[in-house]
């Protein structure tokens, strides 16, 4: 052992010696190595290395193969410890004996090895999706989980999925605490709010579908009508009822929490201010009133082919009331206009009506088209229109700019503003932090983008199937059919307008497009 060690040491020295000579030609090195030896038996071999053939390399058979490797180091630049030289049936060992290897004059040897850098693992280990905890996988998926159907609860599931897509509502709920219950909120409302909050967070975390057991129990407790049973199974309910009741409860409980700056966050998000002119045709009396609603109704009659027409219908109604001047009840016409815009505009298609003869809620299958982008400017009151004009002009300019057009002549006065606020559009997304519209978030433009559709498939309100179609922050649409989320394309969303037995829109939720002024 010792002897061998010493010998290798010696050759390392030799090797170093060669290294110094490396600028010289291989021949001279070989020559030198031969000079170092007194008695030498020389063999000429050729060595194949990659695509090159090194011809006439001398082997001194009295020296161990390590010397030969040093020679090759000189020729190829591959350090000896990384050289692998193939001789018949094996690798050439540093301390092998040439005589036993049977290398012949003129033989072709093959060498493998490079001076390439050894591949190193990256310092920061790569994280794989499979290693992540479940909630991060959910994040990675880009959309929330589905909800199990607990027996005719698709109306509830689809409602929850639609409302779950409102980030402001989510953050408002997060701020709501167990103890924060104030006295003016009853116990069951408080519990429903808590259950909603928990369910929303569970949907965010989970990859697999969630069973909304707790939520459902509380909902039934708060609104016993949802616990209606038929043949000892729970009955299908109207999703719109569920939607409005849930929103009402949330508005009650979230208003009372002191943490929020605004007294009524739900109202700010969904509330629509209406100003109505009540006008009696007979007497010419006129009065005006204001009210706040959570959704606009789209009435469907024979003339209605488009959402816009339905909305106009919905804002006009006739009512009979006692006329003070006539002293009897008379027909009054009520014409409403929107006076305050919500961040999320909810529109209900009034597809169900009570059919007395069949004693059930029947459904209107008429096709009513709705746009992906809704402009409600002409439904607004004059006051509101005035405030909307400036932002709308800006928006048009921005869009014009995007399309490469010059701003129109009219807006030349606002040109200087343009420069200051060039990235107004950028702030539109990701405003999930704050729960209510503050001026810095931009001004309303009266233009809305479709973000969620709740559809119904079937012939009556008490039967059929409800499904939610929700636009994700990434811009992709997901269809939540109970526990199964399916990705969908945007074109298919507009095909839910009815006129057949396919899913048809029942509630649409639009998100306001704002612009920073």
């Amino acid at each position: 052992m010792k002897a061998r060690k010493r010998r290798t040491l010696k050759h390392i020295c030799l090797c170093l010696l060669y290294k110094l000579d490396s600028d010289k030609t291989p021949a001279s090195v070989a020559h030198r190595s031969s000079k170092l030896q007194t008695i030498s038996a020389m063999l000429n071999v050729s060595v194949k290395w990659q695509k090159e053939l090194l011809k006439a390399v001398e082997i001194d058979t009295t020296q161990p193969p390590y010397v030969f490797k040093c020679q090759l180091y000189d020729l190829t630049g591959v350090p000896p410890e990384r050289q692998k030289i193939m001789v018949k049936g094996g690798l050439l060992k540093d301390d092998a004996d040439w005589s036993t290897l049977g290398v012949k004059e003129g033989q072709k040897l093959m060498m493998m090895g490079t001076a390439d850098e050894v591949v190193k693992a990256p310092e920061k280990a790569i994280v794989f999706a499979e290693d992540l905890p479940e909630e991060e996988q959910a994040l990675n998926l880009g959309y929330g989980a589905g909800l199990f159907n607990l027996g005719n609860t698709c109306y509830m599931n689809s409602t929850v999925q639609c409302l779950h897509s409102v980030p402001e509502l989510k953050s408002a709920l997060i701020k709501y605490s167990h103890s924060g219950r104030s006295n003016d909120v009853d116990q069951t409302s408080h519990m429903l709010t808590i259950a909603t909050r928990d369910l929303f967070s569970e949907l965010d975390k989970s990859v697999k579908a969630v069973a909304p057991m707790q939520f459902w129990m509380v909902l039934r407790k708060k609104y016993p009508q949802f616990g209606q049973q038929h043949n000892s199974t729970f009955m299908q309910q109207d999703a719109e009822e569920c939607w409005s009741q849930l929103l009402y409860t949330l508005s009650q409980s979230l208003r009372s929490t002191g943490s929020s700056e605004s007294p009524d966050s739900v109202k700010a998000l969904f509330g629509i201010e209406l100003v109505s002119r009540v006008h009696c045709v007979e007497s010419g009396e006129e009065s005006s009133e204001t009210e706040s609603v959570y959704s606009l109704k789209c009435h469907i009659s024979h003339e209605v082919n488009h959402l816009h027409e339905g909305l106009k219908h919905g804002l006009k109604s006739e009512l009979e009331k006692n006329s003070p001047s006539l002293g009897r009840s008379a027909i009054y016409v009520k014409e409403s206009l929107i006076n305050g815009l919500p961040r999320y505009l909810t529109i209900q298609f009034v597809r169900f009506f009570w059919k007395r003869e069949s004693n059930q809620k029947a459904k209107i299958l008429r096709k009513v088209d709705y746009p992906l982008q809704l402009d409600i400017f002409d439904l607004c009151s004059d006051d509101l229109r005035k405030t909307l004009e400036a932002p709308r002009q800006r928006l048009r300019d921005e869009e014009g700019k995007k399309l490469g057009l010059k701003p129109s002549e009219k807006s030349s006065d606002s040109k200087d503003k343009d420069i200051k606020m060039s990235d107004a559009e950028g702030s539109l997304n990701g405003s999930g932090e704050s729960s209510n519209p503050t001026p810095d978030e931009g001004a309303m433009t009266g233009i809305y983008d479709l973000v969620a559709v709740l559809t119904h498939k079937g012939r009556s309100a008490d039967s059929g199937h409800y499904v939610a179609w929700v636009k994700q922050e990434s811009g992709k649409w997901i269809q939540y059919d109970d526990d199964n989320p399916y990705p969908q394309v945007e074109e298919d969303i507009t095909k839910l307008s009815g006129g057949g037995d396919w899913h048809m829109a029942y509630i649409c939720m639009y998100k306001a497009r704002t612009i920073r002024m």
Partner: protein
Amino acid sequence: MAPQDPNAPSGSGSGKRNEDSVKVPATDPKKKDDKKDEDLSEEDLELKNQLELYVERVQDTDPGVQKNALESMRQEIRTSTSSMTSVPKPLKYLRPHYGTLKAYYETMAESELKNYLADILSVLALTMSAEGERESLKYRLLGSDGDIGSWGHEYVRNLAGEIAQEFAKRQSEEAPIEELMELVQQIVAFHMKHNAEPEAVDLLMEVEDLDLLIEHVDKTNFKRTCLYLTSSARYLPGPDDVLVLDIAYTIYMKFEEYPNALQIALFLDNMQNIKNVFTSCDDLLCKKQFCYILARHGISFELDDEMVAEDDDREALQDIINNTKLSEGYLTLARDIEVMEAKTPEDIYKAHLLDGRASAGASVDSARQNLAATFVNAFVNAGFGQDKLMTVPSDASSGGSSGNWLFKNKEHGKTSAAASLGMILLWDVDSGLAQIDKYFHSKDTHVIAGALLGVGIVNCSIKNDCDPALALLGEYIDKEDPFIRIGAIMGLGIAYAGAQNEQIRSKLTPILNDAKAPLDVVTFTAISLGLVYVGSCNEEVAQAIIFALMDRSDSELGEPLARLIPLSLGLLYLGKQESVEATAEVSKTFNEKIRKHCDMTLLSCAYAGTGNVLKVQNLLGHCSHHLEKNETHQGPAVLGIAMISMAEELGVEMAIRSLEHLLQYGEQNIRRAVPLALGLLCISNPKVNVMDTLSRLSHDTDSEVAMAAVISLGLLGAGTNNARIAGMLRNLSSYYYKDASLLFCVRIAQGLVHLGKGLLTLNPYHSDRFLLSPTALAGIITLLHACLDMKAIILGKYHYILYFIVLAMQPRMLLTVDENLKPLSVPVRVGQAVDVVGQAGRPKTITGFQTHSTPVLLAAGDRAELATEKYIPLSPILEGFVILKENPDYREDN
């Protein structure tokens, strides 16, 4: 004819018949003649009367008159037997007199005239003789030895049929057959002269004397004869098929058609014959062509100085056999088709063609999907030497933000990633080894294992004097780490498949019998040995594997991976039919967990590529049982059906139909194997009906059936770039976007479809679908057996089993080279091959052809022929490398 039938002698009771028939001419016909005469034209009537006159005269007492009558009758018959579509008129009119003449014949004394009459009776028996009586033959034997051909084709054919029957009868009675054989000689000579080679061959096969054929073939008809012999061999039971092919070989050798002779020798796996071809031929250029054929077949073959005298020539020839220039040829093809540009997995997935369904752009790497990308990248860029993941310049790995692709794979995934480098640099040993080298010095055992496997893959089907694979991998076989061992062992198996290398055997067999070795190491050792000794029937290796199977514990044999050990045993007997029997007997003593599995595997391997219908039925029988216990043997049985019947087109069609039935009636474990069997039957051959079946199965509710179907879709379209399959897979990728396992399978299948950017094939059959490369088949069935339990093996940590497919990868090209083996571009016609077996004349061999200039790609079922007279190809089958010789008779026409 019908009205006369009642009077026709019907072969019952000869005595009575005689009486009847004596009366016949006297009474009945006359009555009927009145009626019938109206239908006959004047000419016919005359002929009829004439013949009746002859019949009467034959019975005359004067020999002179008799002779004249016979001569005339003979003349009439001979001149009219030309048509085959209807019964010749003289025969028709003589029918009523057949009985008369026969009776008269019996009374005649032995004389020349009697022989004459016998001849005529023999001809008349052609239409008159009752089924099974063989009177034509009887009277022929009694008659004169005249030229039988003068009576026409139909007569000779009929005679041949009767001889076959008579021969069978005489053989069972052990009666003498000499006189028959004389006749056979005549008939064969006649057939061979008259373009009826198939009939001659058929007759000789019936009388079991094919050797006679050799005397009768000549320059003009030997090609058709041999073509018929070789294609009929497929349908013959052993050992007749070998006999037939031997005759074909002898004929080819006789006429110096060496390439064809070589192919038959290869088909029979007869080393002695292969050597004979080399020693008989003395054209060096031809020998080079032989070497190309041998190289494509993938068997190891050492030339000696008897075959090639000159050392330099021998070295050059051996280089061809060793496939050293395969990479160069393949790259020539790639450059010509302009597909050198490396492709990324995304280029293959084509996610942009899918509508919104594709999952939202994931920001985090998924190990499973990265592994799939690794395989896709390896398959697509196989053999091109460049890609966009693994061979990117190293400076990108140190500074680049993307980092080294290798480390985007997790744990054992790194093994496959490192090994993929071998696939990318396939067949290019020199640069391959240089590029893989750096991974040898890694600290990660998975990476080293991958590097070892990569070395094996690079060397697949390439042999090198220095044996770099053995030298490098040999060092690592006995390392501690099981991953490294598996990498080295599997690498050896791939690099030396079919080599029957003693050194490897002595290195690997000890592992098999090492009780301490882990099961996976043992399994891979067994498979590697099976591959190295594929189809060799090597006793010692078989013993070692059998012991390994016996040594393993009960629970270990229940593991899915352990089921590959019987397969390795089967590989030893691949296509060797009866030779397996001794081992099959031994396998009956195995642990019951593996016994039946082993039985099925051995049977299917031994008869793989034989088309043996009886064995297929046997396997179908096994599939009809409904199992209660968790038995696994039906999977290999289903695969076996495909392996056996893939031999020829007809068998393939029948097997596809049988498999459809299994799908409907079979248990789940059968249904899981059916897609794989379909994939094997039509590998690299995208048949539309199979594609539809698989597409249907790819949506099966059983996820394992779906996975198998998806992988099989990949196999079906392997290396074809088939747009329809690519579209199906793309849709499946969005359909299964949530199911990571199925998505992985879809990705692998996508990689397979674009294998080598569409320049490669996995079909183990080559040379006009005649020869079966044993190593290629072994590689495919190893993969398929692993796919029988997808979840445990491919989707587990043994995904690198997918690399066994490299054994079957071959360029699907026609590359013509000149006499210096430099690529030479010539126009060729490429079209769908037409079956010309048994067709007369010089029928067209291809249809719907297009003219290209070489190198060209050949799809499944395509055949090429030179579109120029300027060169003569040295191989009759234009596939792979073909040497062209200048045609000395060629004249440029202006």
